[in-house]
């Protein structure tokens, strides 16, 4: 008989999250029935193509979506449903408990405010720390992110490169030691080497703080290098979740297999067809019109199914929490 598993309560539990937007062209179903959980100290990557709804999930958790968004479901954090909180409570959580690093640092930063001030502002607003002390703490945070010269904190965003601005964004998001950091395409606009350097610094500070990281990216190799677990999203739905290494070594969902086939080391094999419209998505499995293994059944909706993963440690069966949304399993 198997011994009972002790399951820790997840730090963040997203249950049945659906987001749609009313637009003049129709109702865009940006996220449908998204279920995720994040453990303490874990790095979870949410991967998928542009427009598949990754950032919408982050925006919904943080209540940062525009007014035409219709959000359903739950996002439980610290015993409270984030989606039910009012703006005042949410403002307290944003930055201090859950922070977000946006994808375009040059747009997210105030162009007429010194970067040190922008980081220090978080400390003054949330913790009521004096101006001088908060500026010193901001300089210290920038130093930890590799910007050692003191005068860097007195510079403006336009005096920095994209990579340096991204570090400022990371410093701003981490200065209050949040429990969850959401990094929305932190590598966008940075070249490969710089992206990895920035992510390595971020991961090291995150580990020191004991925070969890939700990494939203379309860079599969970055997700593989940095994350513990990975959730693959297609057209607003999560199609596969599992340990990152396992998903790379043994992808199960036909979309995951096709997506990994596009990687340079796997020969740039294109996925046939194009991503469907989010207004009139295909009925049933949304990938079925492009799937090589499509069957009649695939026109019916499938739920996430637990699949036993591969054995990781020799001689020891390990439950791998692999879940797939496909009729093949």
């Amino acid at each position, binding site marked *: 008989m198997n011994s009972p598993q002790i399951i820790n309560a997840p730090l963040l539990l997203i249950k049945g999250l659906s987001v749609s937007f009313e637009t003049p062209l129709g109702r865009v179903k940006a996220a449908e029935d998204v279920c995720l959980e994040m453990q303490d100290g874990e790095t979870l990557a949410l991967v998928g*193509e542009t*427009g598949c709804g990754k950032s919408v999930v982050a925006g919904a958790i943080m209540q940062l979506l525009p007014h035409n968004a219709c959000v359903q479901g739950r996002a439980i954090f610290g015993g409270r449903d984030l989606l039910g909180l009012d703006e005042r409570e949410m403002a307290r959580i944003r930055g201090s408990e859950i922070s977000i690093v946006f994808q375009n640092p040059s747009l997210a930063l105030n162009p007429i405010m010194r970067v040190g001030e922008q980081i220090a502002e978080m400390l003054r607003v949330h913790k009521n720390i004096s101006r001088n002390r908060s500026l010193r703490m901001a300089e210290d945070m920038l130093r930890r992110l590799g910007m050692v010269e003191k005068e860097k904190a007195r510079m403006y965003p336009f005096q920095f490169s994209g990579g340096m601005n991204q570090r400022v964004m990371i410093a701003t998001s981490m200065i209050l030691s949040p429990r969850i950091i959401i990094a929305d395409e932190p590598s966008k606009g940075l070249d*490969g080497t710089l992206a990895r350097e920035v992510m390595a610094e971020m991961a090291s500070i995150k580990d020191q703080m004991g925070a969890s990281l939700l990494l939203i990216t*379309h860079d599969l190799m970055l997700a593989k290098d940095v994350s513990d677990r990975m959730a693959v999203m297609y057209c607003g739905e999560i199609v596969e979740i599992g340990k990152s290494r396992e998903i790379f070594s043994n992808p199960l969902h036909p979309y995951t297999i*096709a997506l990994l086939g596009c990687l*340079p080391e796997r*020969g*740039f094999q294109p*996925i046939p067809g*194009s991503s469907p419209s989010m207004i009139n998505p295909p009925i049933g499995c949304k990938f079925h019109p492009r799937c090589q293994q499509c069957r009649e059944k695939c026109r019916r909706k499938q739920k996430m199914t637990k699949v036993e993963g591969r054995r990781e440690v020799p001689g020891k069966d390990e439950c791998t929490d692999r879940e797939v949304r496909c009729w093949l399993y």
Partner: protein
Amino acid sequence: MLAILKAQDVGKAYESGLIFKKQHIVLQGITLAVNEGKTLGLMGVSGSGKTTLGMMLAGLERPTSGRVLFAGKDLASMRGPEFLAFRRQVQMVFQDPEGSLNPRKSIEKSIHEVLSLLKIPPREWRDRTGEILETVGLSEELLCRYPAQISGGQCQRLALGRVLLLQPTVIILDEPTSALDISVQAQILNLLRDLQRDLGLAYLLISHQPEVIRFMAHETIILESERTLEEKAKRRWI
């Protein structure tokens, strides 16, 4: 192998300052050749002058030193119709596909604009539009849409289709896939290879991604700040 487009000891410098003029050398002593029906990869770190070199080869910028030759003829000596003919033969596809298209023109109008400039009779526009959409793998349903209503990959296909209408011999591809997802990148790169095979196009592919260059290029040039440091056959380099 015939070199269709050549740069001979090309350099580019910009001046700044109103009173105390200061010269910034971007490129110096660059020599390269794009061969007919082949792909020359151009790699380099950000700011090494890859795009400036591409612009000079496309005739969009003038070099401050050296010469650019197309089919053996110096660009600087070309005038009027001859230069226009060169501009049709050597086309450029840019990094940001959405930015290359007029946001206020529908896809159909964007294509018709090129056909009208080519002085193609309007009665042929429909057929020519259909042909080019088929070549780049786009559906006719998209014709009434605007650039903001189609995906980045579709925009890049359209930008490529507009270029192909001019029946060029050389296409300068400036980071054509760096703004695209990995799945769309794979589609565009495969499409470019198919077009090269079918139409005998020559490419100058500018990229900072070694894997893209490895997949596409027959030869590679590496630019380092200010000058070319090495030129090696692709296999030897990678």
